[in-house]
């Protein structure tokens, strides 16, 4: 199918992009990064922006750098580059591992970290990972930059905390050196969306679990943390994982679709959380 007509702007800088968005009224402008979520929506005519702002040629939005205890990833950094980036692999291995499960190689060449997060699809793999990593999302608008913690960024289904005149510019991730990690994705076919995904980070200390971070994919209208499980794991011995995982679905509100019922999703969340945490423990 074929997109409806739209105007097109290709700003060269973040400031120019923000200026362009600022001039456009709500719901009329869409930011185009890699386009791997937006283009199918345009083609199916599920989105009708009057203006598409292509930020794909803004070099300052691309790349990975260190900033003290944090890793700073430009919003436009592609999945392909995230997976292979040595800094990401060293300090945020969970992100590299989970990104490798996103879509397929051709889509990963175009799709971007920022685009995936800004799309705020709870079935996407990376929102739950950002949540588990306690990432901070940096948005730039007409009034300057602001930082939004991941747990405040995902507001509702396909809805982020970004304002219509804001651009997601970078993602700051606290380094998780020494943490074990695993992304357990459960999908019906290789290409399909995750029925449920579990992003687990675990820090061991003296043979027990010091602390954990567990993000859940597709267990509600936003990505969620398995807080009850995290609490149960804090300071617990390794053999407490199975029991702790039993509370992984507490407080979630998974949806129903042809792939899975809410009940089944809750069951999967418990099983996959146990497996993800055990895998993260190594």
């Amino acid at each position, binding site marked *: 199918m074929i997109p409806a007509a739209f105007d097109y702007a*290709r700003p060269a800088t973040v400031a120019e992009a923000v200026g362009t968005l600022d001039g456009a009224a709500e719901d009329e402008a869409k930011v185009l990064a890699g386009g791997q979520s937006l*283009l*199918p929506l345009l083609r199916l005519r599920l989105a009708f922006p009057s203006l598409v702002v292509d930020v794909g040629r803004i070099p300052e939005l691309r790349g990975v750098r260190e900033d003290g205890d944090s890793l700073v990833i430009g919003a436009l950094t592609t999945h392909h580059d995230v997976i292979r980036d040595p800094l990401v692999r060293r300090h945020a291995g969970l992100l590299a591992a989970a990104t490798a499960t996103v879509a*397929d190689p*051709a*889509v990963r060449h175009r799709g971007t970290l920022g685009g995936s997060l800004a799309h705020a699809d709870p079935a996407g793999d990376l929102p739950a990972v950002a949540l588990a990593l306690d990432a901070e999302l940096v948005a730039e608008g007409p009034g300057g930059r602001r930082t939004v913690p991941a747990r405040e960024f995902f507001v509702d289904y396909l809805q982020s905390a970004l304002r219509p005149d804001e651009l997601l510019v970078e993602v700051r991730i606290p380094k998780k050196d020494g943490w074990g990690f695993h992304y357990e994705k459960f999908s019906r076919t290789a290409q399909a969306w995750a029925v449920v995904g579990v992003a687990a980070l675990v820090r061991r200390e003296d043979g027990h679990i010091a602390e954990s971070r567990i993000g859940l994919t597709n267990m509600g209208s936003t990505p969620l943390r398995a807080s009850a499980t995290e609490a149960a794991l804090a300071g617990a011995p390794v053999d407490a994982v199975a029991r702790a995982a039993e509370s992984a679905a507490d407080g979630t509100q998974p949806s129903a679709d042809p792939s899975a019922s809410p009940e089944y999703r809750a069951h999967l969340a418990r099983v996959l959380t146990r497996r993800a945490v055990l895998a993260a423990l190594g």
Partner: protein
Amino acid sequence: MTRISVKVDGTAYEDEVEPRLLLIHYLRDRLGLTGTPIGCDTSNCGACTVDLDGESVKSCSVLAVQADGSEVTTVQGLATNGSRHPLQKAFHEQHGLQCGYCTPGMIMAARDLLAENPDPTPDEVRHALEGNLCRCTGYQNIVRAVLAAARQDTPARVPAQEAAL
């Protein structure tokens, strides 16, 4: 209308295009490069896979304006000096195609894999092709073809059953 300049299979083009024009339609309808087909509207099937500046992309999910200033290689631009690309030969020799509709995309996706991983395992080949659907072959001979192209010294396959019967 937006002005773009794109090099496709070694030829430079300049065109005025609507911003919404998909790269696949630019290739097929404007440039007449119909070797790359289109198979879906959700970027799942991969039939339209081309190389954009050295990386495989699904040309149904790229706007022509996004390819401005870029180089595109399609299945029609793979042969060099009249000689077919090793993948094109291998798909033929290993019976890696039946109807052939997915073949351009398969070849372009496999080419991308081999550029990064010249000696993949069968499992790596399968994962590299996970975004390209084929309805005819069950993929087995496609995997064989990619492996054969990777190790070009491998002799053309004679099925065990032919030898047996």
